[in-house]
């Protein structure tokens, strides 16, 4: 048991040493560290006036919501599949009604141009 623990500790020590050596080399031993001009996003020679961290309208957002909604609907079909043999045609009709209502929702979303990116 102790020998296994010693092996783990030895490997950890080697890993940490190698990592520390790499860090020291990149930070201190390498004369070519990144400079302020190198950290500027490349725009063809100019600097951006503002930070790139900006808020904009995610236009696929309604499409994402519709996708998540239908993902959740699929979850209802698993318990339905379990009782389907017992319930028979009744379960089939009920699920048919459920999917029809969802289908109408998809048609409505399409008419409202939810699936259009632009």
């Amino acid at each position, binding site marked *: 048991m102790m020998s296994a623990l010693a092996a783990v500790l030895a490997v950890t020590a080697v890993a940490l040493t190698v990592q520390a050596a790499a860090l020291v080399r990149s930070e201190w031993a390498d*004369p*070519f560290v990144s*400079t*302020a*001009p*190198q950290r*500027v996003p*490349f*725009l*063809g*020679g*100019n*600097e*951006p*006036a*503002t*930070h*790139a*961290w*900006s*808020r*904009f*309208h*995610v*236009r696929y957002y309604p499409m994402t919501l519709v996708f998540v909604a239908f993902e959740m609907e699929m979850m209802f079909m698993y318990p339905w599949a379990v009782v389907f043999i017992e319930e028979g045609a009744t379960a089939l009709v009920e699920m048919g009604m459920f999917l029809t209502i969802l289908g109408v929702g998809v048609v409505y979303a399409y008419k409202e141009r939810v699936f259009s990116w632009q």
Partner: protein
Amino acid sequence: MTPVEVFVAAGADRWHDAQALRAHELVRLMPTPRHATVLLVAGTIPGSAREAFDRVHDQLPHPRAVVTWDEIVAGNDVVDAVASEIVGRADRVMADPSTSSPGRLADEEPNDWRGVGPFGQGGEGMMGGTPYGRAMAMTADDRDGLSLDRLELRLGPFLGQLPGGLVADVALQGEVIQSIEFACAGSAPFVTGDRAVPVARRLLWLSHALHVQGLDAFAVGAARLARRSARLDDDPGLARDFASLRRRMRWTGLRSALRSVGDRDGLDTWARWSAHLDAIAASLDGADSRPVSADGSMPITAAELAEMITGLTLTDAVTTIIGFDIDVPAMTTTAVET
């Protein structure tokens, strides 16, 4: 042999020539200076672009070397001579990294931000200070009636996707261009479509345009044809090989990508490409080099182009700009004169 990675900082007068390097097996043109070992300076860099040039130079990682196109004494094939010089300089700087080209700009952040604010990120609150060195974008109305951040950028003059020397001040919200202004006289016509130019130049335009569309293998093919047409006035296989390239381009989906982009007077970017390709084919078939604008799609002014691409996504805007073979030297000259 692994090709040497090169970033081209081209002036407007040498930008088309530099595209020919795409066909050379010893070098590889890179999209940003961060990927390159050698900075190739091609053509005249105007004083107004000097600071931009210095920044591009400093963005190359060490060890780096600089090659100037106009200083190379060439024999028959200037592209070969430039490529050889690039390889030689890259080999030398790799063998002795102490000869790496030193930085030109001061190693200073644009704003003092380290340690400022509750987390040392340079600001306080939603909009305060300069987090990580730059001010936050201010809000403005967008096309959906929302009030969201407006990102202000100056693109060019050394952005690989745009013609060399072209500078555009762009305001973006997300990927949508809210406003754009080109650094030139507002009414200057600046496409070459209205005049005859050598077929090699048209093929170099095609090479760059295909590269921007992500079709690099085709871009290399077009650049090779350009080099052949520049070397030999009468190459009997050239027209046939261009027809073959054009046939293969049909299978890339290019037509559907360019259709309905950049509509003007009922003509889209695909129509403009077709006009360029027809002009190349006619020149290679022995006809006189004729203007592309025979179909009335060109020329266009800077102001008209800016109006066309306002409201497009950045990708569609670049595609539209490339669809016109922009004559940047003429544009700059006109701008200076007015």
